[in-house]
């Protein structure tokens, strides 16, 4: 793989304060992933609900992979306490997570189609908010909200896949975090056991493992693999 030619071109562009073109970024991704795989990833339509320790990491991983259409949803603002595991920077404190994350992702790949909704999911909007998304990653931090969301998603959507999450607190073995396939439309990532209820805390690497399990499952689905 010849990276040096790309590097020269991009360094030349940066020295002129130009960002790589759409074609340059696309070609770079194709070189890494192969064109056949990249075309499938680029056509993906993925929603990430909750942009905290899980969601911000999922969204960043998917943006880096070049998922073409991202739908990011969270009502909250960035707080200093988020920075122990979420992708935000000091300069993002006080901003809506949606807007801060959009800014971060646009500096990774400005050519992705990213829709943001700075709202809380409720009984009304859940009925239509995912109508353009094929895969939804649930990234809430509260157990009751997770269960309610699963309930709502399967009540109102008869197609599309949900990748949910449960159990990622503490510093147990990273090997305990798994992806579990419940059925063709429902996957759950996590260890299923270690939650905030047990008094354990959330750490960047451990939560990140769960987030990347979710992001990994997204890419598996986009490239035609349905097993966990």
């Amino acid at each position: 793989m010849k990276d040096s030619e790309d590097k020269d071109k991009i360094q030349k562009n940066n020295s002129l304060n130009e960002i790589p073109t759409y074609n340059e970024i696309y070609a770079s991704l194709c070189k890494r992933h192969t064109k056949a795989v990249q075309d499938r990833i680029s056509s993906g339509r993925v929603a990430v609900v909750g942009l905290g320790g899980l969601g911000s990491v999922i969204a960043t991983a998917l943006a880096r992979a070049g998922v073409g259409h991202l739908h990011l949803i969270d009502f909250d603002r960035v707080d200093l306490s988020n920075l122990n595991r979420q992708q935000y920077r000091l300069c993002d404190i006080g901003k809506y997570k949606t807007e801060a994350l959009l800014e971060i992702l646009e500096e990774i790949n400005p050519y992705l189609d990213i829709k943001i909704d700075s709202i809380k999911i409720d009984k009304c909007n859940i009925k239509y908010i995912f109508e353009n998304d094929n895969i939804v990653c649930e990234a809430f931090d509260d157990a009751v909200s997770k269960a309610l969301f699963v309930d709502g998603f399967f009540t109102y959507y008869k197609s599309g896949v949900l990748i949910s999450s449960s159990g990622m607190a503490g510093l147990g073995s990273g090997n305990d975090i798994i992806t579990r396939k419940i059925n063709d439309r429902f996957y759950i990532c996590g260890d299923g056991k270690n939650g905030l209820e047990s008094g354990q805390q959330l750490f960047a690497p451990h939560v990140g493992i769960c987030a990347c399990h979710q992001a990994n499952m997204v890419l598996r689905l986009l490239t035609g693999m349905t097993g966990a």
Partner: protein
Amino acid sequence: MEITVNGEKYDVRRGISLFEYISESGYDMARTAVELNKNIVPKSGYKNCILSEYDMLEVVTFVGGG
């Protein structure tokens, strides 16, 4: 009658509803999702969902963190 829950076989009374099974088994209903024979059952349907012999259930209980 026999049903399977999370891969284990259990004996339950005939006519039991999913709502009754979940409540009586000690699950926290607010934190659970139930798949019955490969379909997620909406909570609004638990009371009317009468279990049949050899039903296969996956009961997922969520914990907090994210």
